[in-house]
C-alpha cells in the first residue's frame, strides 16, 4: 500500500471529472488565525472538498472515497470518521470491506506518524498520538458492532496483531475487551494472557486483561471460583520476580471485595515471609505486609523476627511502624510517603 501510494501521483480533485460539479469550501480561519498550520496543497484541497460534501450532507460512493483520502492524510480527524459512518450507513455498504479499510489505515499510516513519533501508528503511546488511535478504535467498534459475531475472530486476530507489536497498546486492549464482552470469543483468552505473561511477566496490561477475564468471562466462575488457582499462579510469578509490581497488585486485586479473606489467606502472608527471607527486592512484600496489618492481620513471630532483622537497631515494638521505617530507608523515592503512612498508624500504648 505504501509503495502504491508513492508510485501513483496524486490527481488534484479539481482535475477529476467526477468532482467537477462541486465547489470546494475553503476553511474559514479568519484574517489572523492563531496556531495556523502550513497545510500542504493536497491536504488543503482534500479538506476543501470534504467540507463541501459535509455541508451538503452528501451520501454517495464518491463521498465515501473522499473520506478515505482525508483519513489517510489525518487519521485523527473525528469529523471525517463520523461523516464516513453516516455515508456507510446510507449506502448500506458491506462492512467487511470496511474492516479491511481500517486495517489498511492502521498499517499504512506509519509514514505520517513518524513525524510525530518514532514508532508506527499502532505503537504510539503518548496522549497526543492516542487521539487518532482513539478515533480509530471507535470507528472499528462501530463497524464490528454492525457486523456482529461474524466479526469476532477477525477482531480478536486484529488486536492480537497490534499487541504483538506493542503489547501494552491501550486502545487495542480496550477494543479487545469490548469485542469479548459484546461479541464473545472468550475460549482462549486466559491462555492468551498466560502466553503474554510468560513472554513478559512485567507486562501489566496482560495482568490487567487476566483480571478482566477471571472476573468477567462467562465461561469461568468469577473471582471467587477462580481465586484459589489464581493465587497459586500469582504466587509463583512473585517468587520468580519479587520486584515485579504487576503480580503483587494482581494478588491484592484477587481479594478486592474481601478484605477478610485477604487478611486470613495463608498464601498471602507466606509469600511475604518467603520474599522477606531472601532479603532483597522486598519493597512490595513490606508494603503488602503493611496493608495486611492495617486490615487487622496479626503477624506471626517468624514474620516479626524477619522484619525486625531488616531494621536498624532502633526497631519498634509495633511491627507496622518498623515496616514503615524499613521502607523509608529502602525505598528512598517514597520516603515521605512511608513517613506519612507511619504517622497515620493507630497509636499503640
Amino acid at each position: 500500500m505504501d509503495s502504491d501510494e508513492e508510485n501513483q501521483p496524486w490527481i488534484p480533485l479539481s482535475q477529476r471529472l467526477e468532482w467537477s460539479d462541486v465547489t470546494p469550501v475553503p476553511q474559514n480561519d479568519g484574517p489572523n488565525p492563531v496556531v495556523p498550520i502550513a497545510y500542504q496543497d493536497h491536504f488543503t484541497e482534500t479538506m476543501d472538498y470534504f467540507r463541501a460534501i459535509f455541508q451538503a450532507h452528501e451520501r454517495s460512493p464518491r463521498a465515501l472515497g473522499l473520506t478515505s483520502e482525508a483519513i489517510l492524510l489525518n487519521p485523527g480527524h473525528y469529523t471525517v470518521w463520523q461523516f464516513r459512518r453516516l455515508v456507510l450507513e446510507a449506502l448500506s455498504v458491506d462492512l467487511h470491506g470496511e474492516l479491511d479499510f481500517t486495517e489498511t489505515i492502521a498499517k499504512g499510516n506509519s509514514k505520517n506518524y513518524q513525524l510525530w513519533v518514532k514508532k508506527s501508528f499502532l505503537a504510539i503511546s503518548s496522549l497526543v498520538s492516542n487521539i487518532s488511535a482513539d478515533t480509530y478504535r471507535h470507528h472499528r467498534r462501530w463497524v464490528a458492532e454492525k457486523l456482529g459475531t461474524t466479526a469476532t475472530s477477525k477482531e480478536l486476530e486484529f488486536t492480537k496483531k497490534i499487541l504483538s507489536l506493542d503489547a501494552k497498546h491501550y486502545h487495542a486492549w480496550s477494543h479487545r475487551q469490548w469485542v469479548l464482552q459484546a461479541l464473545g470469543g472468550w475460549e482462549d483468552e486466559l491462555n492468551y494472557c498466560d502466553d503474554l505473561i510468560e513472554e513478559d511477566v512485567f507486562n501489566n496490561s496482560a495482568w490487567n486483561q487476566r483480571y478482566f477475564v477471571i472476573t468477567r468471562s462467562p465461561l469461568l466462575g468469577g473471582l471467587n471460583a477462580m481465586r484459589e488457582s489464581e493465587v497459586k499462579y500469582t504466587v509463583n510469578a512473585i517468587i520468580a520476580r519479587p520486584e515485579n509490581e504487576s503480580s503483587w497488585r494482581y494478588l491484592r486485586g484477587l481479594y478486592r471485595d474481601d478484605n477478610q479473606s485477604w487478611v486470613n489467606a495463608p498464601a498471602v502472608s507466606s509469600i511475604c515471609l518467603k520474599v522477606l527471607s531472601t532479603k532483597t527486592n522486598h519493597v512490595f512484600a513490606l508494603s503488602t505486609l503493611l496493608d495486611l496489618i492495617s486490615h487487622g492481620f496479626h503477624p506471626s513471630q517468624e514474620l516479626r523476627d524477619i522484619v525486625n532483622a531488616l531494621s536498624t537497631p532502633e526497631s519498634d515494638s509495633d511491627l507496622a511502624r518498623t515496616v514503615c521505617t524499613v521502607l523509608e530507608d529502602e525505598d528512598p523515592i517514597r520516603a515521605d510517603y512511608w513517613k506519612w503512612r507511619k504517622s497515620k498508624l493507630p497509636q499503640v500504648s
Partner: protein
Amino acid sequence: MESETQVVPTVTEREQWMVENDVFHVYDLFANAPRNVKPQLLKLRREKHLEYLNGGLRYLGPSFCVLDANRPWLCYWILHSLALLGEPLDAGLESKTIDFLGRCQDQEGGYGGGPGQASKISKLYTFLLQMKHPSGGFRMHDGGEIDVRACYTAISVASILNILDDELVHNVGNYILSCQTYEGGIAGEPSSEAHGGYTFCGLATMILINEVNRLDLTRLIDWLVFRQGRECGFQGRTNKLVDGCYSFWQGGSFALLRRVGSLIDAQLVMPDAGEHCTVSGTPKQGEILEGTSSQVDKTSQFRQGGLNGSCRVNYNDIGHSFISTCPLLEPLFNSSALQQYILLCSQVQEGGLRDKPGKSRDYYHTCYCLSGLSVCQYYQSEDDEALPSRSAVLGPYSNQLEPVHPLFNVVLKQYYEAHEFFRRQ
C-alpha cells in the same frame, strides 16, 4: 545481579534499562559538574521556551496536519504554557485567539477541532446534555466514545461556566467509580488498565461533583506513589516508561489529594468502608463518613453532599471553595526529584519540553511538563497564592512559575477571573 540469575530480560526490562541508562547518564553529568555550573544546568530556559511557544502560535509546519482536528487544544497547550511562565498575552494575540476559537464553535453550540468541524464539548448546557449517556458517562463528541476523559471535560467545563447541575452530574460518579481498577488507579473505561491521565480526570471529576469519598482513596494513593520511579519522573501505568507529561497527570492528582486530606484520614481509619468494590451496586453516598464527623475540619464543604443525598450542594462553588480548603502539608511524593527530572531530562535547551531524553519537544509535553513543575513548586505551600518558599523551587529561584488551579489546570489568577465572570452571568 540480573546476570547471576541468568534470566533473559523481557521487553519491559530491556526498554526500562535503556531509559534508565539515558536518564542516569544525564544525572551523572549533573553530579560531576562543577558546583558553580549546577544552578545553570537546573535553570528553566524561559526565553527559549517563550520563543518556541510564540513561534507555534504564529506558524506550525506541515507535519502538524495530523493535529488539524486539535487546534483548540494546541491553543491551550501554548497559551497555558505562556501563562505558567507569567508571560502576558498581548491584546492583539488575545483577540486573534478569541476570534479563532469563535470560528471553531458550531451551530449546535459545541466547539470543534477547527473551523467548521463538528462540536466536541460545548459551552452550551444543552449540548453537554446531548453528550450524556444513560450510564452516567459523557461522549467526547456526537457519536463519539464514552470515557473518563470526556466526563472530566464536560464536568470541568460546566463547573467553570457555572452551569453544573444535578442533571449533568447524575450517575457520573457511578461511571467513574466503575473505572477504578483493582490496582487502585482509574482507567479510561471500566475494566481497562489504571492510567495516569484518566486517574487525574476521574479524581478531579469526583471532587467537582462532590463524590470523591466514594473512591477507594487509600488504594488510589498506594497506586499513585508507586508511579514515581528511580528515574525521578512519573510513569503513566505500572511497569511502563517514565514520561514528562505525567509530571502533571500524576503530580496534579497529588495536588488534588492534599485538599481532601480529611477524607483520606477517614478511609485510613476505616479501611473497609469503601464502595469501590461494587461496580454495579446502588450508590450509597457518604456511608464512609457517617460516624467520623468528629474529624470535620475545613474540608467540611466536601462532605455535605456525600453525607446526605438530600443535602443541597451548589456544584458550581466546589471549584472555588476547593482551593481555599486547608491543605495537607505532609508531602506524599518526591517533588524535588520530579523537578530534577523535568529540568534535566525533559527540558530541551533550545526551548520546549519533552517526554524523555532522546525524544523531540512538542507543545503537549511542554504544557504538561511546565504544569507539573508548577504543581511541584507549590506542592507544600499553605496558600497557593503566596510565593513558594525558596526550598520548594529546585534550581535558581527564577524558575518559579505561576500557580495553577489543580482541578482545571488553569493559572490561578485566570481561574479567579473566569469564576468571577461566569458567576455574574
